[in-house]
């Protein structure tokens, strides 16, 4: 959803107007965050499927959701991988959401409503 929505939005931003440098940079930065979010999301899903295949009963977790101490080395590795991917995914998604106002405020800086400015472009 995030990637699809942004793909449409950035296409509109880039094709309908000639962006100034600062706005273009902000859009590029958000591009990176959204790409990172999409990739880590795919990696999380793939890691989840691998865990399901390797551990049909699920990873041995305690009530807090942490891995129990008697877990195998393989289990620990999968758990670490899954946790890191989820954290990265959250970080990239938060980055993508958090970077949006930067794009918006750059646009706001050159916001010139009114008929006269419409004639200029």
């Amino acid at each position, binding site marked *: 959803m995030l990637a699809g929505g942004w793909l449409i939005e950035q296409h509109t931003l880039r094709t309908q107007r000639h962006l100034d440098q600062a706005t273009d940079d902000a859009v590029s930065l958000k591009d990176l965050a959204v790409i990172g979010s999409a990739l880590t999301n795919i990696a999380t899903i793939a890691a989840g499927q691998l865990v399901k295949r390797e551990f049909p009963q699920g990873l041995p*977790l305690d009530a807090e*959701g942490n891995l129990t101490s008697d877990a195998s080395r393989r289990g620990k590795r999968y758990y670490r991988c899954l946790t890191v991917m989820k954290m990265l995914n959250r970080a990239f998604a938060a980055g993508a959401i958090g970077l949006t106002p*930067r794009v*918006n405020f750059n646009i706001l800086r050159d916001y*010139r409503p009114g008929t006269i*400015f419409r004639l200029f472009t």
Partner: protein
Amino acid sequence: MTIMTIVQTTAASIGRLGLAAAAFGRPTVGRAGGPGAGGRSAETATGARLSMSDSLYELLVNAAIATGWLSERRTLYGRSLGKDAKVMVTAKDVLVAATVVTGAAALVGKVAARRESPADWLVSEEEPSPDGAVDAGGDGGYVQTMTKLNRTFALLGVAATPFINFALFDSYHPHPLRSFFSLW
């Protein structure tokens, strides 16, 4: 980029993140999930602590939404907005206010229900009944309704944002003179 711009952008970012958190629920970063997770007795034992942190989290989310949006709308109104942008900002005003009010109402309901019957509350919070009519003197239904309303308003608030952005973008003219001369 001035310090003021950084502060304004950061505040707006926090507000957006708060709105996303209210709309999509609390992230469970540290948990790997899966069918092997947790036993009921252990969950109940840590329930009280989790509930307290849940309340704090919800309080922070609501505060972030309110302050973030107030700061953002102040920045927006710093410019003379067109009619379409003003309409969208007002619509988001309503949605954000509704999100904060329903969030606060849900939080108050949860705290009240927890005080009345802590044991019942822990069970109902972990396993909400599908029809929404459970537990603790009817508070469960009220809390669930408020939580649903809160999520709905937050989702609508998130969805309203691009309308403001595109209303601004519609009058985005970064180089009016250059554009004017390029027409000739």
